[in-house]
């Protein structure tokens, strides 16, 4: 991978104009994807024949360009047609001439860009006085005037964009250039809204300032130190030794270093292009991206793919192959996926006594270690992070081998924490964030997330240098996500356990129900089978006695009672069987309900009613039409309703069975005058196992199944049943609407 890295770097460093166009396309796409307000690529390689003093480009139409040039040069002399622009010297007293005088330059010229398209051109070049570049201090305000002039030209021409690149070769801060640049910035700030100002330094004694100006957005001043101190990416890539190394590298490569500048949410980031592509390479190498920057990589890949799909073919084979290489990157990872992966890993480790997770930063070299002990109580959280951090570091010290990984720029993460002063250093280098479950009261500690670092080699920097507020902020965000995930995981785990228990219980219940149903089925068969021989035997006796003239009324009653009891027993057994079956199996026959069902049941129960001094009356208000019904079950319905009525009716009262018609069709009413059904029980009274409290109060026992069975049979026929009146009379009504005709 290192070989590939080097090969790509060498290609990138040799980018020509075409390559820059490619990069420009890429960067604009990247900017869209990462919500950057701007993203620019600047190549400081001077055009042939142009000294790198002042170079500015602007795009406007020829007439306006000419006007602007005239304003700058002070004369049209030698200017010629704008598309045939040659070197032009400024007239005496012109702004450009004044500028030369002010800055001590020998001459100033306007020169077209070699090979530039019409309308795209460079202008204003000066040759340094005496062949040297700015040996001494500059007059800040004079230079600022030049800049202001250029800006005014741009404004006058309504230029969409004005780029000014100032490049100096000076002796650094001693020459007052810091003040110079600050003044320029201040002037620009006053002259035009500045969207962004990027300043990048890549050699100790050589600075390249890039001023990007466009209208409409308020100015922002960006001091050199700001870039370095408040820029996480620069902090990682361009700070410290690396800063100078890049500069040295640039020198090796003829002083040419492509620089990428990015602005994200009002923060500026800059890095050398080769570094930028190193990110991609590291991404490839690691197969993983992390906390931020992943979207940039994805955007770059998308941009390259888009470029190629639009038919772009680079003339330079090396550029082509680089683009194809980038386009072929399988960018399947995402920040979310990575986080989830980390979280999953964490979750898998939670049940263990102690576990770790690894998270990668964008560079891929920073490994964080999360140590997640379990079993702590919330009291330990209240003790503060310090003790937890110390404990965690102590654990880390006792488990050195687990801490691997390294920083770029030579820093390494905690390969070794032993040693005389390691503990004090470790305190600074360890960030420990408790993972707290705030979903439950009291809050409890789920674990800790810990990042431990140290330096590689002999570097003696404080560890804290590596783990600043940004790192802490990232970790805190991660810890919140982790806490939520872990807490949710545990809740899920509890839920899963509960569901498993429920499943087991359901399975056992189903097994028991199946066994019970089988048993009921067998019992049903065993109980019903002997009833028929008894019935037949009684019928035989009755026939025999009748045949012999010995059948008197008393014997007939006795036989009828036995047959009635047998039928009642049959209803009970069939009712019990109904409780076990999902739906009654109906043996539908066409018949007359009064003749085939009501009469036989009344006949069967009449002696039972009489025994309680109750009279059973059939009142045929209408003639019920013939219909389809299961004779056995229909009898059971009427039998249960009448038996209930007999149980609860007052002594000496009458029970009416009425064939009638309501708004919907024929109905059967069963009325009794008795204890009634309490108000509010109109629906409940049909539920399984329910007996009205007033029935229980008078010690009339029952299983509460009679009306439940009645409703099941009635509904299986497509009929309806309701309690039409609670008392005086208590009236149940069966409607036959919807049944089989």
């Amino acid at each position: 991978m290192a070989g590939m890295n080097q090969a790509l770097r060498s290609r990138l460093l040799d980018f020509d104009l075409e390559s820059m166009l490619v990069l420009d396309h890429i960067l604009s796409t990247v900017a869209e994807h990462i919500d950057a307000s701007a993203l620019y690529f600047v190549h400081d390689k001077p055009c042939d024949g142009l000294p790198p003093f002042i170079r500015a480009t602007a795009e406007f139409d020829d007439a306006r360009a000419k006007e602007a040039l005239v304003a700058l040069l002070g004369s049209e002399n030698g200017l010629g047609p704008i598309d045939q622009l040659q070197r032009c010297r400024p007239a005496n007293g012109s702004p450009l001439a004044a500028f030369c005088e002010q800055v001590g330059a020998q001459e100033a010229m306007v020169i077209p860009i070699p090979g530039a398209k019409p309308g795209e051109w460079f202008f204003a070049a000066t040759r340094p006085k005496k062949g040297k570049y700015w040996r001494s201090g500059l007059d800040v305000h004079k230079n600022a005037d030049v800049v202001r002039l250029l800006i005014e030209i741009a404004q006058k021409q309504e230029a969409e964009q004005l780029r000014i690149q100032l490049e100096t070769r000076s002796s650094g801060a001693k020459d007052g250039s810091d003040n110079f640049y600050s003044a320029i910035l201040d002037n620009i700030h006053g002259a035009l809204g500045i969207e962004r100002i990027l300043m990048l330094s890549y050699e100790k004694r050589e600075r390249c300032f890039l001023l990007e100006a466009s209208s409409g957005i308020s100015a922002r001043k960006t001091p050199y130190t700001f870039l370095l101190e408040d820029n996480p990416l620069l902090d990682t890539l361009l700070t410290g030794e690396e800063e100078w190394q890049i500069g040295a590298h640039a020198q090796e490569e003829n002083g040419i270093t492509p620089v990428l500048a990015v602005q994200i949410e009002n923060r500026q980031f800059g890095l050398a292009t080769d570094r930028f592509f190193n990110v991609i390479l590291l991404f490839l190498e690691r197969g993983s991206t992390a906390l931020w920057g992943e979207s940039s990589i994805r955007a770059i890949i998308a941009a390259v793919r888009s470029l190629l799909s639009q038919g772009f073919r680079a003339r330079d084979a090396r550029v082509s192959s680089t683009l194809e290489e980038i386009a072929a990157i399988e960018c399947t990872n995402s920040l979310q996926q990575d986080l989830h992966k980390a979280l999953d890993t964490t979750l898998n480790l939670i049940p263990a006594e102690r576990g770790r997770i690894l998270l990668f930063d964008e560079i891929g070299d920073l490994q964080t270690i999360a140590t997640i002990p379990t079993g702590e109580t919330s009291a330990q959280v209240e003790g503060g992070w310090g003790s937890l951090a110390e404990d965690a570091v102590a654990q880390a010290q006792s488990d050195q081998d687990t801490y691997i990984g390294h920083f770029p720029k030579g820093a390494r993460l905690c390969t070794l924490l032993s040693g005389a002063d390691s503990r004090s250093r470790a305190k600074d280098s360890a960030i420990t964030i408790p993972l707290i479950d705030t979903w439950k009261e009291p809050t409890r500690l789920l674990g800790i997330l810990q990042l431990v670092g140290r330096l590689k080699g002999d570097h003696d920097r404080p560890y804290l240098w590596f783990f600043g507020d940004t790192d802490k902020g990232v970790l805190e965000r991660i810890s919140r996500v982790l806490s939520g995930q872990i807490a949710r995981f545990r809740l899920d785990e509890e839920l899963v356990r509960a569901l498993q228990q429920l499943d087991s219980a359901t399975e056992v219940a189903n097994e028991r129900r199946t066994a019970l149903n089988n048993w009921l089925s067998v019992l049903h068969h065993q109980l019903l089978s002997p009833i028929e021989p008894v019935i037949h035997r009684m019928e035989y006796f009755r026939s025999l006695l009748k045949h012999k003239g010995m059948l008197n009324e008393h014997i007939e009653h006795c036989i009828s009672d036995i047959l009635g009891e047998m039928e009642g027993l049959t209803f009970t057994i069939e009712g019990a069987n109904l409780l076990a079956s999902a739906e009654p199996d109906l043996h539908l026959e066409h018949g007359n309900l009064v003749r085939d069902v009501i009469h036989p049941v009344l006949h069967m129960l009449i002696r039972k009613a009489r025994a309680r001094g109750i009279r059973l009356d059939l009142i045929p208000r209408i003639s019920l039409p013939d219909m389809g019904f299961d004779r056995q079950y229909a009898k059971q319905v009427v039998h249960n309703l009448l038996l209930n009525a007999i149980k609860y009716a007052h002594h000496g009262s009458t029970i009416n069975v009425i064939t009638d018609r309501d708004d919907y069709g024929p109905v059967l009413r069963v009325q009794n005058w008795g204890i009634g059904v309490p108000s509010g029980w109109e629906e409940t009274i049909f539920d399984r196992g329910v007996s009205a409290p007033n029935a229980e109060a008078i010690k009339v026992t029952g299983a509460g199944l009679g009306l439940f069975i009645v409703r099941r049979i009635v509904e299986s026929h497509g009929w309806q049943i309701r309690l039409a009146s609670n008392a005086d009379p208590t009236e149940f009504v069966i409607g036959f609407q919807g049944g089989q005709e």
Partner: protein
Amino acid sequence: MCDDEKRRVEPLIDVLNLLGYEATVLDNPSDVPTFLDEHHDEIDVILLDLHMPNGTLATELNARGFECDAREETGILLYGYVKKTYHLPVVVHSVLRGRQVMEYFQNEKGVEFLSKPASSDKIVEAIERVIGRRNE
């Protein structure tokens, strides 16, 4: 009559005898095919219990060229055989009220289905109905 619990159908036989029917009971379903071979001319109606141990009945029927599934209820096997061979009226009489069983018999013309327990009157009515349909 074919019922594996002969003792329980004896009261019905007594009633039927009183009513002028002559009834014979076979308590082993496997004996039915041979009995039919020998006496089918003397039989007006067959009363079958539905749920009985089928013993070697399926083998017996298969040997007679009547392909059947031994897992079927014995009463259904016997009814199928009677329907195919001697076309005799059948009354199936059972405690079982399975929907499929009842639907099966409801669609058959030569059979009456009765749920147990049924009074002797109901049984005689069913016998006369099924014989009447045969004579139509």
